[in-house]
């Protein structure tokens, strides 16, 4: 119980739990709809999902400032690519939160003339950009680690001997791919924070892709992706060493 108290004392933590609950509602709702559940249950779930979403929007009201602060801190990173990716990611997140605040003002009745559809699309666009930039950063980190590993293996006299033996070009390509894949898996396995970040961002990617109509999937799949990324996010809060730094 002490763990729960410490955990939920962090504002972000509660927001993640509600996010997980919101996407779980979407997933369960879709599953029940496929199995022919009554409209009463589905309406109830949809209402709960809407409430959770609005509550989360309220909780997120200060997050633009937080994202801008994080962007300000990221400008001082030494590595140029990381500096660019992380700063841009935070800036996009700040814009996403700003659009989210406008949506909240509209839903709460403060500014009833807000075009919900337009601002929703805008916010998902910024969210998508932020995720793409985060994934680029992950790809860059993976590449560096793979190069380091490959360099280390080469120093020990690695697997190049096998490549030289293969005479067919396609075979050579296949072997090379195999080597790269094994290296990739090794790098990801020995870097849990990086693996977690990649999986989380990939899961999150499907949400704006679906909402913007770029890659339509089912509401259940979106719910599953959202639930998975929320659970992974909660894990990084419970175990801070799992968070990818910087």
């Amino acid at each position, binding site marked *: 119980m002490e763990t729960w108290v410490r955990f939920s*004392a962090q504002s972000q933590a509660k927001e993640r739990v509600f996010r997980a609950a919101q996407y779980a509602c979407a997933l369960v709702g879709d599953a029940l709809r496929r199995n022919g559940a009554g409209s009463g249950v589905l309406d109830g779930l949809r209402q*709960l999902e809407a409430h959770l979403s609005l509550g989360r929007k*309220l*909780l997120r009201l*200060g997050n633009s*400032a937080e994202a801008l602060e994080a962007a300000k801190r990221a400008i001082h990173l030494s590595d140029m690519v990381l500096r660019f990716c992380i700063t841009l990611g935070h800036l996009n997140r700040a814009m996403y939160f700003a659009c989210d605040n406008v949506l909240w003002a509209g839903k709460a009745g*403060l500014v009833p003339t807000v075009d919900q559809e337009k601002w929703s699309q805008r916010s998902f666009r910024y969210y998508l950009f932020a995720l793409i930039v985060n994934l680029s950063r992950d790809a860059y980190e993976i590449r560096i680690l793979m190069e380091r590993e490959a360099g280390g293996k080469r120093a020990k006299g690695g697997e190049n001997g096998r490549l030289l033996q293969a005479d067919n070009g396609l075979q050579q390509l296949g072997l090379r791919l195999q080597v790269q894949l094994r290296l990739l898996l090794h790098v990801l396995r020995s870097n849990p924070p990086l693996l977690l970040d990649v999986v989380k961002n990939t899961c999150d990617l499907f949400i704006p892709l679906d909402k913007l109509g770029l890659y339509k999937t089912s509401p259940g799949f979106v719910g599953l992706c959202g639930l998975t990324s929320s659970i992974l996010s909660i894990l990084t809060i419970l175990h801070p060493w799992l968070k990818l730094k910087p």
Partner: protein
Amino acid sequence: MEAFVDFTNRSQGRDQLFRATQYTCMLLSYLLEHKADKEKLVMKLKQLESSMSSGRKMFRLGNTVHALVAARRTTQLPDVVPRFCLTTSNLTRALYFICDAVLWLRSVGLQPDIDKEKWRNWATKCYYSSLLMNLARDWYEISWRLEQAVQKKKTKENSSWDKEDQELNCLKCDSLPSFLLLLFQILKRHPPLLLDMARPTNVITEPGITFKEICEPFRTHR
């Protein structure tokens, strides 16, 4: 901005901000209610207040555990009176959060057949019990410190005092004004005690606001 981020990062910070906004809206809409051309503004204030309230209710889900952990901690206090008061206060606060969660379930539509009035009454009773227990403990602490001050005055003859003791000892406790001055000195020296007293007292004794309006925080929303 860093201070703002640090502050709002903590769950309490954000909740207090929303609470402040909610009560400001309540106060403003009360003041502007009967003015001629302010109906739209009053409606917007009421809507904002309602969003803050339902958002905060959702935000409070799970605080029962906080209150139970705090109650467990206060059972370890050395003094009997604070131990009893604070533990009771935390337990009634836990009950309040349970009632609050039930009211939230109803407002969200998950359990529409819940008796809203009954649970709201229970929530109010638990909330006020908790406040009264906190006030009791604050008064106990004040009277203990007053007693300490009087004791110090009695044993003043041979000791060399520091400046603070001199201040207290210059005041004689034999009339109401001097008693109030002594009380003021004690509260000035212990700001947490003053703040802790001021908060619940404000809720109970706000002039010109009816009991119904005090209960607005517990109102469920469609």
